[in-house]
């Protein structure tokens, strides 16, 4: 169940260089991502990757978004229902000294919007 009072809505700029987006998932919690919107800003076909990374381990691809048409927008789901299940669950670290971060990269510039909630 989505708790609208705990839902966060954040937009990130994605570039061709892989980089952190947003904040680490809180320790002993999980990030429940309920809705994603990806928009190409490069004016060309684009492949955007959402990744997670625990500490300094290798980043893991959570999902890929292929935008074939320039300036194409991908949204899932179109409408966020109250009884929706999360699209992605990113598990936070169990140690305060190791963070679980989200990263993103594209073939070119893109915008990424996530609606999520951090909870146990």
């Amino acid at each position: 169940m989505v708790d609208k009072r705990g839902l966060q809505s954040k937009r990130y700029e994605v570039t061709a260089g892989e980089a952190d987006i947003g904040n680490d998932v809180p320790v002993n919690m999980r990030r429940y991502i309920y809705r994603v919107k990806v928009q190409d800003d490069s004016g060309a076909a684009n492949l955007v990757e959402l990744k997670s990374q625990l500490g300094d381990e290798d980043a893991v691809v959570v999902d890929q978004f292929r935008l074939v048409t320039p300036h194409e927008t991908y949204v899932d789901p179109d409408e966020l229902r109250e009884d929706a299940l999360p699209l992605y669950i990113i598990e936070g670290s169990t140690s305060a000294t190791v963070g679980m971060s989200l990263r993103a990269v594209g073939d070119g510039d893109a915008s990424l919007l996530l609606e999520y909630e951090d909870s146990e």
Partner: protein
Amino acid sequence: MDVSLLKESHENLFLREGYLLALQFEQGFACFRILGWEPSNVKPYSLGAVDAGKNLAAWNEIADTNNRRYLMPPEEKWIYHAFYGVNKPKARIFFQYPTRQDRWNLVAVQRTITGDVGYVDGEMSPYDGPFALKTQLFTVRELYPAFNCYNPLPDDMDNVMLNFDIMRYSYVIIKNKDLIRDILTLKRPGRLHTVAGIDPGPAGMPDWLSDLVGKELLTYSKTVIEEGG
């Protein structure tokens, strides 16, 4: 993410005319008969923005713009009975009652106000209710709590809000020793409540109330509760 499923609505815990109430203070029990009731509420009460990983800089005594405390009866003839819910779901509300007396400790050292111990959040006591039993408060004139908030998330909370459901009671103080004994030994149905908590002890009774109850009855109530009358 999911709100707690609580078994009973807090509204069932409000008292009605004729109900018997015994409030335990540091000095002993004061026993009351409820004469009348009137509902009220404060919604929303804003604690303001709380930065990611931070708590409020100062304790909040839940007051209006003229510093009149919502949770303290303005006159001695009333008792307030309150419950509250929390928004945001992850906002952790810490509690002092009376002010400067930290409550809800667990281990030998005092709980912090940035930790995982001794708080109520919006999942435990949802903003729209039903409110958790843990949030139950009885207040009398000159006795009121204070609240702080901790944001455990990496995102700022734009506005942490509380929703207070408050019942005001008029009352008469019970001076009949037989009735006091029956209330405290549970022979008569009544509500017994320890004001503020047990660590390090219940709240001290305000002087005006201890004068009304009288030292003899306070001592008697302690004898009854310890020895069963």
